[in-house]
């Protein structure tokens, strides 16, 4: 366990040393500012006739869990896999005192932690912007719970990115392909009806199923099962390919 934790910390160090993840998070925060500013502008221009009441943390949650954080996660997956293969640093990871399963898991854990951290930074920033623009703490607890629950589907996105990366050699191709596959899975339901129901990407807003609404138990179970099963399949396939890859 000590070796695994140490390895995970080292993988996280590789990610946090890169400014791009902070820049992407800042861009996300700027989008929130523009969203909030837009609402205030409408109120001002209409001289109070149109008042846009916002709950910024909850309104920005779909943007964070469906766009911003998946992009961060898929770029991080390329950083820790394809980039390492192409820069010839993967051998340094594989000669550590960890078997390949733990090496893969340490990298995956670091990617998920980075995604979770970005999501929570978005929550804090959105809450602050919400309060500064005249909002209240009324739904802060519900919003926090929603952000935390929506970290779970991000694990699936991380393994989707990892699977694409262990199959390819070029980091740019891997990033683009994993973004394309994610987008295809996310929006295929618009073109082929019924497909969304068996893709884990439909469960990005997991908080809707678990908080507030009371779904029938069997439907809740199937949704959670699809998510858990998808994560397991992606994890297993990623490991099988990673384990057999020559350095």
């Amino acid at each position, binding site marked *: 366990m*000590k*070796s695994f934790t*140490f390895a995970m910390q*080292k993988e996280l*160090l*590789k990610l946090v*040393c*890169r400014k791009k993840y902070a820049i992407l998070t800042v861009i996300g925060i700027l989008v929130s500012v523009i969203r909030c500013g837009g609402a205030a502008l409408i109120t001002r221009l209409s001289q109070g006739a149109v008042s846009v009441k916002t709950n910024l943390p909850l309104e920005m949650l779909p943007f964070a869990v469906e766009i911003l954080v998946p992009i961060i996660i898929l770029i991080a997956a390329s950083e820790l896999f394809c980039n390492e293969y192409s*820069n*010839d*640093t*993967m*051998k*340094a990871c*594989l*000669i*550590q*005192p*960890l*078997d390949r399963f733990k090496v893969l898991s340490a990298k995956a854990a670091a990617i998920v932690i980075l995604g979770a951290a970005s999501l929570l930074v978005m929550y804090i920033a959105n809450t602050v912007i919400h309060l500064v623009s005249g909002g209240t703490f009324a739904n802060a607890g519900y919003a926090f719970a929603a952000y935390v629950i929506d970290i779970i589907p991000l694990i699936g996105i991380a393994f989707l990115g990892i699977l694409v990366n262990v199959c390819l050699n070029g980091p740019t191709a891997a990033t683009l392909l994993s973004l394309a596959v994610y987008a295809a899975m996310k929006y295929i339901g618009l073109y082929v009806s019924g497909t969304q129901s068996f893709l884990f990407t439909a469960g990005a807003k997991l908080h809707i199923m678990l908080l507030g609404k009371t779904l029938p138990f069997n439907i809740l179970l199937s949704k959670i099962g699809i998510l858990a099963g998808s994560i397991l399949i992606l994890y297993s396939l990623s490991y099988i390919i990673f384990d*057999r890859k*020559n*350095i």
Partner: protein
Amino acid sequence: MIQLKHLTKLYKNKRGIRNISLEIPDGEILGLLGPNGSGKTTIMKALLSLIPADSGEIIINGSPLHKDFENIMSRTGALIESPAIYKNMTAYQNMKLMARSREDLADIDRMLDIVHLREYKNDKAGRFSLGMKQRLGLAAALIGKPETVILDEPVNGLDIEGVVEIREYIKEMNRALGTTFIVSSHIASEIERLCTSVAVICDGEIISLDSTEHIKGTHPSMEDYFLEKIRERRGGI
């Protein structure tokens, strides 16, 4: 003791290693000497499980490598082909990433001192020269005083002083701690100065294994010994 038993690994182009059997006692500095493409790096990669062997076995201190991998690797340092350097990170951060355990972190400054990179510890490794990157890779391989060290062309890119310093450090580590070294090179004189025993590899097979002392006593130089073995192998052509 490290034992390689009938180890075979062939790539798609049919090059690689065939039926390699070797026993390396503790405290040995074994040199793998051979021309380019002879299989030296393949042997080292197989020893570190970077590539799966097609057949054969690797046993280290009585345990098969695949069964006791984590324990064996916790006591093994390595530098394979080019050093694995994270270009956007500092020398110190690179050493942190190469450390095998938290205990090794305390050894970073000492290792950077030994390879004369202490003053560059906060500089980005991407800006280092080839020789500096090689020193950093060596420091990473030797950090924490591992029991076994595998070095693939360790003096590649080093200046003369660097070559001498690294050679002396390896010999000192071997003398003081009994560290086992496996060193590959295509430079016969370096193997002669550093190693206690030499295996000559050609076309993926070990064609000769002897102690350096015996080679020096029977041949004018390691180079002559090597050329003799290669010519014997290739039928005197």
